């Protein structure tokens, strides 16, 4: 008999736009897998529409974007808005990349969850994701 275990958190990791640098996101994908997450990696060159469609079909708890191209101020809010429009307000949107401090602040004000810059440790990412998704699940279940 397999012991009943808490269901794993599902996270969609995506690389939007023309940015082809996927080394970082693959490292994060592996760290999350090793921490017990179910990680869905979409690959490169995804549009916000494709990312959101995948997030809904896969019914993920969280969408995490890696953006190194400078397009973060457009793409993060767009993904957030598309999710909200489909009734998926409770899906956490987070990510990382080359994002200046003041841009991070502006994105937080628009409903984006914590963002991670260069030099972040994998432990920090895993710890944050675990806490954020635990809190979300408790909220969902108390509804």
């Amino acid at each position: 008999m397999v012991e009943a275990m808490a269901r794993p958190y599902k996270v969609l990791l995506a690389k939007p736009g023309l940015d082809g640098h996927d080394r970082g996101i693959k490292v994060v994908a592996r760290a999350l897998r090793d921490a017990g997450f179910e990680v869905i990696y979409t690959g490169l060159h995804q549009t916000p529409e494709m990312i959101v469609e995948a997030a809904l079909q896969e019914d993920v708890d969280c969408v995490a974007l890696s953006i190194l191209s400078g397009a973060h101020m457009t793409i993060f809010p767009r993904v957030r808005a598309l999710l909200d429009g489909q009734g998926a307000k409770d899906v956490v949107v987070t990510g990382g990349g080359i994002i200046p401090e003041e841009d991070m602040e502006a994105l937080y004000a628009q409903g984006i969850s914590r963002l991670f810059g260069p030099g972040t440790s994998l432990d920090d990412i895993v710890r944050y994701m675990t806490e954020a998704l635990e809190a979300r699940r408790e909220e969902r279940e108390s509804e």
Partner: protein
Amino acid sequence: MRQAGLDAHEQRAHELVERILTGDRVAAGRAISLLENGGPGAPCLLSGLYPHTGHAYRLGFTGPPGAGKSTLLDRLTVELRKRGKSVGILSVDPSSPFTHGALLGDRVRMSGATADPSVFMRSMASRGALGGLARTTFEAADVLDALGRDVILIETVGVGQSELDVSSAVDVTVVVLTPEAGGGVQMIKAGLMEIADILVLNKADREHADAMEAELLDYLDIVENGRLMRGRVSTAEGWEVPLVRTVALDGTGISELADALEKYRAWLEESGVWEQRRQRQARAKLREMIAARVERALWEAPGRRELLDALADQMAAGRTEPVRAVEEFLGKVRSSGLLI
């Protein structure tokens, strides 16, 4: 309190069914999660979906890792869409037995198919199940069936030697091999060949493809009326297994594969094997559901785990032996009067 809670779950399950029947993809995504996680509304959801299932053509794809199954499914989906079919895809990848985490990467190879919003694609982690599938893969297929998908493509984990489960639950089993897949004896040993209704030799532009094809055809030879017939092996029901050469990357042979799948379906219907298949699927499904229920009941009854621990302690201390311990366990189960 408990009753009221259950009602809310049932209510939610009914709502999901209604929404799925209108083609709502968000509801389909949520429904599959409910089944995967085995929440309290799951049985109600399955019962609600059942009357709306049975229309989709269910295809199972199996073969060793790296055979190109995901890429093949991507190109096949595009071809089926051209032929006016709606498509659902379920791709299973392994979960880590240690952390339960999983890296589900099939979407990377399926960007052609998934760019089409009318294609529903779901990645499933195997979550400890054997046989190349997740425990709830076929329940997820019911969701896509009720969602109105004409064709459902199911891709197994691809470990190669324990994938026989898939064939008992789909209408057609496609075995995908490559020129590098190993010699003929390996193929026979793997038991993969026996479950194939259609054989695909992918990466057929590579060196040794001709040799592999010859070897596969050797396997497909049968002796009929004292004469050797080339490439004529048939399944127990009398279908002659075709070998389709493909190069999924550039699309070679995909149209031929789609033709073979259509031909197989027509044969299923004409020969009456379709009904037999559905009976076999129903049987496999019932067996699985009964086994799951019995197992749950067995361990949920009070005192069972404690009894297991106590017997294990005795065994470890050399005070009993396994056969006697099992008898003792089952004796106590019987005398408790609770289900098994």
